[in-house]
């Protein structure tokens, strides 16, 4: 009985309403943060930091954004990557055009711009739902990328809209080593994840879920549907926007609008499907899964089954496995890895007794 609530009697609503009400969860999160902030920067090599951990964090943030919109507020979107692009290009322009613009403020403003664009493209959600809304967000995806490519002002007149992110500097400290970049991204993602957790367990989160589950009843209770949906679009796009800025500044450095194409939007959607729709931890699990899976499959193909698989299968293995997993999760466990983890915890609660 390693994981139990029993014995932890809650004598007040204060303790029941902590961000992580169960002690083992609190300890787990503390340990995780300790490892992430203290051990990892010392132990991980450059490849791990730049190639795995930073993208993992950036995608987690984008998936978190999409999960707020789709998982909590129930509005399907295929435009996440476009909102990332808005964040990246807006931050770039704020840095470029305003002297002495602080980096973090530029990221935040990039997020705000994405939020505003998100609100505009969220307007159709007041009229249409589900599949049709997804198509409308698809329009956002294509339109935004087209606009960023066409209007060369956004990329300071560079060829084909490529931007090179400026150096990251805060109070004179330059974030140029992989460790420092990783720590900066980790700090931003941690703070934003905690804020997201607070929102979804508070009144806004309940309003989002109410609109998702039963909009007529939500309205009758006094929830303003329009306000609630547009807020979800705004907050979600803000998260995607900041993720986009980090993608450009801390991950790849040089990006073009096409880098934020529909493929990336789908990738983020797959992250929340696999990780868990409507769960904060699900965004992280899904991102980890999708960042790590290709690496794992490469190892499998090259080292374990070296030469055993026909090249046609080996090169498409990733797509096949992805497809299979998506179908598996959609049919068998719509709440994704986060739910499987939950079930494991519930089992642990009873372990070693079966009942």
């Amino acid at each position, binding site marked *: 009985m390693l994981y139990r609530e029993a014995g932890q009697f809650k004598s007040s*609503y204060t303790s029941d309403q902590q961000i992580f009400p169960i002690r083992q969860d609190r300890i787990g999160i503390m340990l995780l943060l300790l490892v992430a902030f203290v051990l990892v920067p010392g132990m991980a090599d450059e490849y791990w930091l730049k190639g795995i951990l930073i993208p993992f964090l950036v995608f987690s943030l984008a998936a978190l954004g999409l999960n707020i919109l789709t998982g909590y507020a129930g509005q399907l979107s295929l435009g996440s990557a476009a909102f990332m692009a808005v964040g990246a290009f807006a931050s770039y322009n704020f840095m470029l055009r305003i002297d002495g613009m602080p980096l973090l403020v530029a990221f935040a403003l990039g997020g705000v711009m994405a939020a505003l664009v998100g609100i505009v493209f969220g307007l159709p959600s007041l009229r249409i739902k589900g599949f049709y809304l997804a198509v409308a967000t698809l329009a956002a995806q294509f339109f935004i990328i087209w606009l960023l490519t066409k209007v060369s002002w956004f990329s300071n007149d560079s060829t084909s809209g490529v931007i090179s992110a400026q150096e990251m500097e805060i109070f004179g400290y330059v974030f140029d080593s992989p460790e420092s970049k990783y720590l900066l991204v980790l700090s931003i993602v941690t703070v934003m994840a905690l804020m997201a957790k607070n929102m979804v367990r508070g009144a*806004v989160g*309940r309003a989002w879920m109410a609109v998702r589950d039963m909009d007529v009843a939500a309205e009758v209770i006094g929830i303003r549907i329009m306000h609630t949906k547009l807020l979800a679009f705004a907050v979600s796009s803000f998260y995607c926007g900041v993720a986009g800025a980090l993608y450009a500044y801390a991950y790849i450095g040089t990006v073009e609008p096409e880098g934020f194409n529909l493929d990336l939007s789908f990738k983020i959607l797959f992250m929340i499907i696999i990780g868990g729709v409507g769960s904060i931890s699900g965004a992280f699990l899904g991102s980890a899964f999708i960042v790590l899976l290709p690496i794992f499959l490469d190892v499998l193909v090259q080292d374990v089954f070296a030469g055993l698989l026909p090249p046609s299968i080996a090169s498409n293995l990733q797509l096949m496995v992805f497809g299979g997993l998506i179908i598996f999760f959609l049919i068998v466990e719509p709440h994704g890895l986060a739910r499987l983890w939950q079930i494991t915890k519930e089992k642990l609660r009873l372990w070693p007794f079966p009942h």
Partner: protein
Amino acid sequence: MSGRKIGEVILDLQHISLRFGGVKALTDISFDVKEHEIRAIIGPNGAGKSSMLNVINGVYHPQEGKITFHGEERAKMEPHQAAMQGISRTFQNIALFKGMSVLDNIMTGRITKMKANFLEQAIHLGRARREELAHRAKVEEVIDFLEIQHIRKTPVGRLPYGLQKRVELGRALAAEPSMLLLDEPMAGMNVEEKQDMCRFILDVNDQFGTTIVLIEHDMGVVMDISDRVVVLDYGKKIGDGTPDEVRNNEEVISAYLGVSH
């Protein structure tokens, strides 16, 4: 019944007509509701009872008629505005938030009373935190009142039907409404569950003075707990009065009570 006092008219409906395309759901209906009373609406299937509730809290907008609430004639109103004015309701087909726990469903019922904006909530300090705790305490009162402490954390989708109905009542009560609209709160329940629900309705009315407009098919229940009854048939009003008056009304007997259910 206890010493509660029925007050003045607080809701007055005059000549309400509601059409959906060619379907006349309500035709020229007038009746009123007095403060603190239990007002029942009865009638056969499709008579327009649910439509009537939907008119009262702004889900449907009648083409004709005048609605006066608390002495003020009401312009076209949206449901969330009705909620702000103290009108809560439950639905004929349970309309709970399936993915949320009992506690969260009932907490959602207090949404109109919560003031902290999303940024304050994201940081969860100060007002947002205080509010969450204060409202949690109120919600716990509702949970105690309805005797559902044991299922607080259960996702509502996993609950049996009768309990879901009770949670839905809890969500409506959490708003501390002055008027409660109940659409068939006892439909599909067994005898014991019905008795519980009756007791809760009477207690709400008695302890909080809440005015209740109730749709119910079970005649025994209606005659037992309501102060006055409106009878609808094919969208028209065919009777209005105390349970005894309605019971003895010829038109009502032939149109409704004569038909076995």
